Each structure stands twice: as structure tokens, then as C-alpha cells.
């Protein structure tokens, strides 16, 4: 089993069920893979057979979508215990979740829902993250979410909110560049300013994904669908911040309308070429 941490200059690919057999059999040249933790909450069968095989050759990152970190319900300890078991089995290099909520009163809506950027939310979320880190015995990363609305009682900007959460909880940030871009368009702020306010030392991973532009009579809204290639504007932002966040590995995410694996390899190679350009410019 590969045990070294995921290297800073590497580019991983989000691994979905339909590609597991291809990856296990063909061992493509990919630095590492990220899986959705909940897809392996089942106890056995093909998902685990493939993942065990893949883990022999690749490092893994566990990306959770169901812990509901921002919820005011009690922390779902059963969920966390299963995650802990999986971490023990597969020894992933990174473990991450989202700066959002998805459940209330025991009902799981299974979406990454928006939080108001208030002191109350910060205190609540930071203590939840601390508890999760204590239970897992490791630092986790939390991802900035795409949002389609903002709350008028928010007391600060998204980056101030993120900085307070990482400072108080000691967690790292999984910086999703596509999500920053989607939010910048949906809520009209400057994404470059956003990135300039995020300390590079807290960024432990970068995500890149494609999104959908929805044109309505009232205007345009961008939706984080993960069903297409990374758009040019997001690549430009990636290029612009590659130097600032050079210490974080990058991941290509694609969840719906899954293409041939070679398309994901192609996206990973584009990311790699931006990284190399940045490195040769620095040399």
C-alpha cells in the first residue's frame, strides 16, 4: 500500500463507480484518486473489492458529502464511526467534508445547503469540526460550497467566514476554485480578491470541476453540476492562483454524465500543464 502523503504538485481524479474496473485493470497514470466516502459505507461487494485493489497502487482521498457539518442536529456519530472504520482500512492521505449543512430534525436533504455567515454559525461549525477531528484523530479539510442564495443577516464575507472557521478549528481548506467562481458570478464579487484573502498555509487541496450556466429571464445563475469540463474562466483563475496555492494538490471532479476515463485524464493533464508552466516560470 502506498503510504506517503499526497504530494503538493500532484493532480488527482475523482473516482466514480463506473470507472473503478477500468482503473483497477488498466492502472492509468494518475497521481491519486478521490472517492466519496459514503459510496463505501456498504460493508462489502464489488465497490470494496475494486477499491482494495486500487489502493494497492494509488493513494486515496476521502471526500464526504453526508456528515452535515453545519447542521444544528446532534453530530451523526454513527456516520462518523463508519467513516473512521473506512479511514482505518484504506488509510487515505486526505479526508474532507463541506462547509454546508444537509440535514435538520433527522431529515437528510442530500444537498450542500447554504449557511449564513454569522458569528453564531462560526462558533457552531468550528466546534463541530473540532469534534470530528478529535473523533477521527486527524485534521480534516473543509470545502467552500457553491451557493445560489445569500442570507441578508450574514455579518461578513465568505472569505472572512472561512478564515475564522479554519483559525478556530485548526482544519484545512479544500479550496474549490469552480465554487468560488460560481459564487463570484452568482453573488457578484471579485474572485481574485477572494483568493487574495485566503492564506495559502491553510489550503490543503484544490478542486476543479465543471458547472452549468442557467439563463433565466431575470438573469443568469450558475449551478455546480460537475457534469462537464472545467470552463475557461475557471482554468484562468487556476492559472492565476497556482503560484499562491502551490503547496496544495489538485483534483479533477466529475460526478454526473460521466465521460470516458480518458476525458478525465485529459483534464488532469491540463491542470498539470498549468502547474508545470508556473514552476518553470518560477525557476
Amino acid at each position, binding site marked *: 500500500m502506498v503510504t506517503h502523503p499526497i504530494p503538493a504538485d500532484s493532480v488527482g481524479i475523482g473516482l466514480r463507480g463506473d470507472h473503478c474496473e477500468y482503473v483497477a485493470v488498466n492502472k492509468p497514470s494518475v497521481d491519486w484518486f478521490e472517492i466519496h466516502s459514503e459510496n463505501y459505507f456498504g460493508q462489502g*461487494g464489488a*465497490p470494496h473489492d475494486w477499491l482494495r485493489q486500487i489502493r494497492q497502487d494509488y493513494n486515496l482521498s476521502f471526500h464526504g458529502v453526508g456528515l452535515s457539518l453545519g447542521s444544528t442536529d446532534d453530530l451523526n456519530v454513527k456516520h462518523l464511526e463508519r467513516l473512521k472504520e473506512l479511514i482505518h482500512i484504506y488509510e487515505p492521505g486526505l479526508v474532507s467534508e463541506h462547509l454546508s449543512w444537509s440535514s435538520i430534525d433527522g431529515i437528510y436533504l*442530500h444537498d450542500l445547503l447554504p449557511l449564513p455567515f454569522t458569528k*453564531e454559525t462560526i462558533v457552531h461549525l468550528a466546534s463541530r469540526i473540532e469534534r470530528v477531528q478529535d473523533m477521527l484523530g486527524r485534521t480534516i479539510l473543509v470545502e467552500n460550497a457553491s451557493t445560489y*442564495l445569500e*442570507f441578508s443577516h450574514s455579518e461578513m464575507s465568505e472569505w472572512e467566514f472561512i478564515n475564522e472557521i479554519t483559525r478556530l478549528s485548526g482544519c484545512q481548506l479544500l479550496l474549490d476554485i469552480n465554487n468560488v467562481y460560481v459564487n463570484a458570478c452568482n453573488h457578484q464579487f471579485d474572485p481574485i480578491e477572494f483568493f487574495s484573502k485566503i492564506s495559502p498555509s491553510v489550503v490543503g487541496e484544490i478542486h476543479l470541476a465543471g458547472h452549468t450556466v442557467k439563463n433565466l429571464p431575470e438573469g443568469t445563475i450558475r*449551478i455546480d453540476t460537475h457534469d462537464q469540463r472545467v470552463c475557461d474562466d475557471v482554468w484562468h483563475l487556476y492559472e492565476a492562483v497556482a503560484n499562491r496555492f502551490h503547496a496544495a494538490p489538485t483534483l479533477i471532479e466529475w460526478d454526473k454524465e460521466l465521460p470516458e476515463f480518458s476525458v478525465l485524464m485529459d483534464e488532469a493533464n491540463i491542470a498539470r500543464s498549468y502547474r508545470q508552466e508556473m514552476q518553470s516560470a518560477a525557476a
Partner: protein
Amino acid sequence: MQLRELQSQFSAEILCGENTSIQTLVEQRGFQAKQRISVYRNNIFATLTETLSNIFPVSCAMVGEEFFNSMARIYIRSHTPDSGNLHDFGEHLPSFIESMPELSNYPYLSALAEIDWACHQAFHSVSATALDISSLGDFSPDNYEDLQFEFHPSIHTVKSKYPIFDIWDFATSNGHADTIPNIKSEGQQVLIHRSKSGVKVVNIEDELFQMIKSLREHKTLGATFTSTLDLNPEYNLKEGLNRLFSFGVVSTITVKRSIVHQ
């Protein structure tokens, strides 16, 4: 508004379409608050509907996607997910289908959905060893009466008063089945399990269904044979047992310990 109140109202707004005071907290910026919230509602219903159609592909194909999706929307509201793992969603769909008067044209649909759910469970269940019939040779024939079986965790059986295996076979054959099943013909039983080559759905006779049911209740082989013969005195027990082992669903055999009174 406190975070807890905000989350409760957001959830009510999404699931029940209630106009809650959450709308007054949403920055509009060109869009109505309702429109912004509906992006989330659409995402949530799309995710949960797709989850159900993925877990219940045969039931979905049987009634058609449009009908299935409208049924899913009602189910999502009446049986909201209670787990952070989407794979747990849909457990109650078979009983929900049974309770829906609109589905009286599909009286077998509930059993079909039960098979879909059992296949989904079998796919993710823990792995276990499979014994073949020769394993019985490890025991003295004197103990046969007292043998108890443990089954592969993926195993599930469904019994229906409709020809449910023929219907399943027809629905999964992409139109290659020879004949359209006559739902008035005799009821059938199926066994769902996972073998090395994947999840299987097999047609089993009522007597074998009875044998499996009894053994799964930890009744001894002797008691199981007796109850099976009660059902059909002509049944060939040896052939039934052979068939059971041939599915690779028996994972352990033990001899029932007699309780010794001192």
C-alpha cells in the same frame, strides 16, 4: 434568526413548499427569493429521484420513467431520508407502492420493488464464504437432524401471489423474453443473492422457499425437512438441498447444542 430556526424553515420550504419567513432572509439581487430557493429544491428532488430510479431500475422500467418520477416525488415527501448515506434511501418504497391506490393496475409492483431493493442490498452486503454440499461430509450423519445453517448476508427471498419471477425476467430481458407473463398465472418465489459473478435473482419452488425460511429462522435441518414435507409430502428434499448449496448461499454449518439440564 437563529441557525436552528433557519434550517428548520429552509427544510419546510423545500419539502412542503411552505412560504416561510426564510424568504425574507434571502438576498434577492434580480431573482425572487422563491426562485433562489427553488434551485435547491430542484437539486434535492433531482438527486433523490435519481437515487430511487438507480436503486429500483426494474420497477422504474415497468411503470415508465415519467410515472416513476412522479411517484418518487410523493415518496420523497412522505418518507424523507433519515441517513447521510444515499444508499439507505428507498427501503420503504415497496410498502409505499402497495399502499398507493393509483398503482392498482400494477398489483405485482410492490414485489418487483422488493426484488430491486434486495438486489441493491445484496450488491453492498458484506462478503462471506460459500460452502458446497460436500461440506456436509464434515459432519456425522447422526448429527444431520441437528444441523443449523448460516446464510450469506446478501440473501433475500420474495414470495408473491403473482408470477413474479416471470415478470422480473420479462422486465429485465429488454424485450427478448418469449412471452409476456400472464399475471393471472400461479404465484412464484425468488431468491436474491450475490455470487462471485454478481447479484442473482433465481426462481425457486415454494418448498425451497419454505426450507430457506425455516433455516434462516435457525430451525434445525430435521425440523426444516419436517415442515417442508408438511407442505408437500412428495418433495425431493435431497434435490432441494443440492439446489440450495448450488447457489453458494450457505456460509456456515453448525450442530445445534443440546441444552443439558444438570
